[in-house]
């Protein structure tokens, strides 16, 4: 798993590439989020469009990213859910917890 970080109109976009699964990627996501919050970047949009695989640990990472950012008064949203991730979020009743978008401009514009 690799993470590219971009800044678009005050929103930090994290482009995740590869697999977010147990033993792979979870630490990376957590560290990236922690660094961003430390530097007062609290508007975070996570782009999952290039994520090839997610298991329950990966879904857990999305949840803990969300709670960590929200607890610090920030906003955490998702971009480009794959069909499989959408399905996993649906059955775990998390689809309504996350704000998610399929269009980056709309997603970035949605941050207040």
């Amino acid at each position, binding site marked *: 798993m690799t993470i590219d970080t971009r800044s678009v109109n005050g929103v930090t976009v994290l482009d995740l590439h590869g697999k977010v699964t147990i*033993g792979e990627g979870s630490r990376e996501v957590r560290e990236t989020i922690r660094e961003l919050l430390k530097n007062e970047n609290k508007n975070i949009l996570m782009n999952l469009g290039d994520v090839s695989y997610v298991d329950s640990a990966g879904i857990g990472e999305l949840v803990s990213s969300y709670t960590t950012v929200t607890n610090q008064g920030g906003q955490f949203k998702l971009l480009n859910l794959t069909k499989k991730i959408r399905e996993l979020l649906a059955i*775990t009743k998390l689809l309504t917890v996350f704000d998610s978008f399929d269009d980056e401009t709309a997603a970035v514009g949605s941050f207040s």
Partner: protein
Amino acid sequence: MGEEIRKDNQVHSLGKADLHLSFGSQFGYLDLVQEVCDSISRMVGFDEDTRYWICLSIRESVSNAIQHGNKMDENKKVGIQFESFPDRLVILVQDEGEGFDESQVRDPLDPKNLLKPGGRGVFFVRSFMDEVGFEPLPGGGLQMRMEKRLNHKKQGEEENDN
């Protein structure tokens, strides 16, 4: 032009699949397990989407065997048995751990657990497989038994591939 003689390329389909795999407790084997699972479930006749959810379930089960059962001890083995029948695939995942009390596993859909980072693995397995059970092994260790029937639609199978 181009008279095609298309020959049977199903010579390799299996009568009855019956494959056993075992390895030390390392997450590094998960991709390999997933590949084997996909091959076997393809041979048995599951479509691509169903195979995806079967093999995600096996990943979850093996992750738990490595993490919770064998507590990441690389010297402890995880065993996987794939057994196909005309109408279903049975997969057994075995670890060398103490087992656990399933009634103590929290419900990930309970609003108070919704934002917990963990606790969705067994739930995924129960969502995507038709039968799921845990049983202690005679010589010690835990066996998770999962069964998936052919031509049986469950949650998650209606969606197309991504």
